């Protein structure tokens, strides 16, 4: 972000800036401890026999990585020990009034996850590539949705209607894709549909000052009702013509796709996923490095100040949320043009709300929100993979996993995050 790398401001006439005692959260250390302890309990109470195999290569790899086989219990205990060490490091830093750095967090997450998998998949083999590639696939709509959310909120409009934009996008993509036979036209239709939902949101939230949260929720319900009705009355009666959209084919990228592990995960995807990479980079760049982005952020932080320097606040907000809606709509297209080549009622399953959580977890920053969405995607896919492997954990618990991670992430780990100052506040001129 723009704040890093600044030298502290020289303060010639010292004003009312009061000394701050650095507040170091002990949340991280506590969560680490609880998770490590949980792991120990699992290992003690439900020991597993056998060996765990991690398959690091996809069948079509150019250079095949070897399989990694470890004795389950020994491996799990080793990784638990690593977790314990990292917990100790976090505690040490808390005592020294320093915060836990990102690398410790990441290392802990990887170690814990690997330890858990080693235990849960004892006697089985874990398809690592499939697990990660599947996570990306599940995260795509979430990332698009989260980007739409970040953009809207940065401009000062709370976008609760992400779910509606995803769903309407999915519907439009299925319908138009089926009619035209082109996934690209379907994608375009999804963007228009998402923008349309955003337009309604803008009309009420920006022009008529209606509470943005309420409008957003109502819009989500409206889109569910509308698409369900159209599905049962129109699509379902003529499925071959109206609800059999063409799919985006999987397009491996020549060289990148051949890199072991990374290639099959990131670069043997569909066009829409590649488009996602571009959109993430573009949004992040535009928001921080262009005139457009500066104005969008200004309008979301202090609209009156923006107005006094000649920026049209409401016009900027409209444009931004229309763009945000279009981006979220692309996420919707992923459901019907990639995942399942057919629209079903309520097929997003509340993904828009998870995307909203990713916005907050990502502190209103496009890159972080993307990472957060990827994490949620991983959690969802992990549940699926473990269910297939036949893990000892009841499947109901596994189904809860993505949501539990969402709550933990939003409530605890991020620490204090500051939303744009004018987020959700309509701008009225006297």
């Amino acid at each position: 972000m723009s704040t890093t790398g600044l030298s502290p401001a020289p303060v010639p006439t010292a004003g009312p800036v009061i000394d701050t005692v650095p507040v170091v959260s002990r949340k991280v250390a506590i969560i680490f401890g609880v998770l490590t302890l949980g792991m120990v309990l699992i290992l003690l109470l439900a020991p597993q026999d056998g060996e765990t195999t991690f398959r690091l290569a996809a069948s079509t790899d150019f250079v095949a990585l070897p399989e990694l086989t470890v004795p389950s219990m020994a491996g799990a205990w080793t990784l638990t020990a690593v977790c314990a060490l990292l917990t100790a490091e976090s505690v040490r830093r808390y005592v020294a009034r320093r915060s836990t750095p990102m690398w410790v967090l990441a290392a802990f997450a990887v170690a814990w996850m690997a330890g858990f998998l080693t235990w849960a998949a004892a006697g089985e083999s874990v398809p690592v590539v499939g697990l990660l590639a599947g996570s990306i696939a599940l995260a795509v709509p979430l990332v698009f949705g989260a980007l739409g959310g970040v953009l809207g909120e940065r401009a000062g409009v709370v976008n609760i209607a992400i779910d509606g934009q995803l769903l309407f996008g999915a519907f439009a993509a299925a319908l138009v894709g089926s009619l035209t036979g082109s996934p690209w036209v379907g994608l375009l239709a999804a963007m228009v549909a998402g923008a349309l939902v955003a337009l309604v949101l803008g009309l009420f939230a920006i022009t008529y000052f209606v509470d943005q949260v309420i409008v957003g929720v109502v819009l989500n319900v409206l889109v569910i009702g509308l698409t369900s009705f159209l599905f049962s009355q129109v699509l379902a009666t003529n499925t071959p013509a109206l609800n059999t959209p063409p799919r985006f084919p999987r397009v491996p990228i020549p060289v990148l796709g051949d890199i072991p592990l990374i290639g099959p995960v990131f670069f043997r995807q569909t066009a829409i996923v590649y488009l996602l990479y571009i959109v993430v980079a573009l949004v992040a760049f535009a928001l921080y490095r262009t005139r457009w982005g500066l104005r969008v952020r200004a309008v979301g932080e202090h609209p009156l100040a923006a107005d006094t320097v000649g920026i049209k606040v409401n016009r900027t907000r409209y444009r931004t949320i229309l763009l945000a809606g279009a981006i979220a709509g692309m996420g919707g297209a992923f459901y019907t043009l990639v995942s399942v080549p057919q629209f079903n009622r309520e097929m997003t399953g509340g993904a828009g709300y998870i995307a909203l959580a990713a916005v907050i977890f990502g502190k209103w920053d496009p890159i972080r929100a993307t990472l957060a969405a990827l994490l949620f995607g991983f959690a969802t896919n992990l549940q699926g993979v473990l269910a297939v492997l036949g893990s000892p954990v009841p499947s109901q618990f596994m189904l809860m996993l993505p949501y539990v991670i969402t709550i933990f992430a939003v409530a605890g780990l991020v620490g204090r995050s500051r939303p744009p100052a004018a987020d959700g506040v309509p701008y009225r001129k006297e």
Partner: protein
Amino acid sequence: MKLVLRNITKRFGSLVANDSISLEVSPGEVHCLLGENGAGKSTLMNVLYGLYQADEGEIVLDDQVQHFTGPGDAMAAGIGMVHQHFMLIPVFTVAENVMLGNESTGVAGTLDVAAARERVNEISERFGFHVDPDALVEELPVGVQQRVEIIKALSRDAQVLVFDEPTAVLTPQETDELMQIMRQLKEAGKAIVFITHKLREVREVADKITVIRLGKVVGEAKPTATNAELASLMVGRPVELVVHKDEPQLGDDALVVQDLRVRDALGRVHLDGITFTIRAGEVLCVAGVQGNGQTELTEAILGLQEHVEGSVTLDGKQLVGRSVRQVLDAGVGFVPEDRQEDGLVGGFSIAENLMLNRSFRSPFVRRGSLRRDALEEFAEQKLKEYDVRAPDIHTHADKLSGGNQQKVVVARELSRDLRLLVAAQPTRGVDVGSIEFIHKQVIATRDRGIPVLVVSTELDEVVALADRIMVLYRGQVIGIVPGDTPRETLGLMMTGERPKDMIA
């Protein structure tokens, strides 16, 4: 560039905020617009700046009639404004704030931050501002933030600069520096409009003075006019600028504050171990620039702050750790600094507001139900006694002017059996007539033998009321000095400099 306003009229519903106001400002001239809060000065300037559209009249710049539809037009025409509430985005850097709306860009709309930084450096060098273009605005002291506002206007080649109540948030030293900057700008040939209600500043820099009252121009004056002349023009009748008070009749130590520490939820220290005593029948004024712990001090006494350590005793009874209601029952009267936010319920009538601190038991409540007759009788009496100008006691509080609202608050707080009065910014945004009245009430309270704690950022008010003055800076007591301490000393103390004789 010569600015002429001709017969500007602006109405809000039935209220005429500006009634045919005319004004002329020439290059190289500081023109003061003097008037009370609510006289229509800010409205006029918002019309000039394109935030409001005038109902009648015209704005002329160098003989060209202008039609501003928004601030963008006004800026393009060469008008720059330094707003009372800074129009800066706290989380942006100085350079980003300066370039916003006027960005120089490279390929594909990328920001040219280097150019903006250059511009900031160039202007701050020319006027000796010392502003770091890469500093985050929220981390700068207010005085420096104000310079950023000035740089913002200058970076757009403004020829007419409007300063809207610029000294309200400044220390006396910062105010002096601002006056110096205004003189520099004047010499650089800018036309300057300086809006204020502070007489001293007017006489210091103004070349011409126009006085506005109730939306109308009521007169012009020379900078040589006396304070009394200017004040009576502003108010429309002779005013007493000095509060008459006798020597205090001091009693025993009443309020004893020891080693009071207040932190906020984020752990930031707002009061760092302060100790002071107020005796019965004494007014202690807390001076300091806003945000140095004054709010936290009054709220800690009242029990509104969460993380309080140390001791506050009133007549020997500990107040720290008590609920607000227990503190009120101990006889503490509290005039909060923001009457609209904390002092009144806007949608309640005057009568209802008068009983807010006595919503339990007698005299206004019996067995859980309101005693309307007792309340109305009480309200009628207070309306007269405190000279609240309102149609009747059923008028909603938010329909009253600032001065009358404040009188309702003061009436409510003083009509109880008090052991201590805490008054935070008792006359902020209040007309001169009401200031006089409220000051008299404060002194009368003191003379009844009640200890009074007044918090004010207006040095005039501090000097007028105080028997002793305590200066707060960054949550610490810089010193407690006698009421007749010279302003210069107080000003220095407000910037954190400790005087030699610490405690009076």
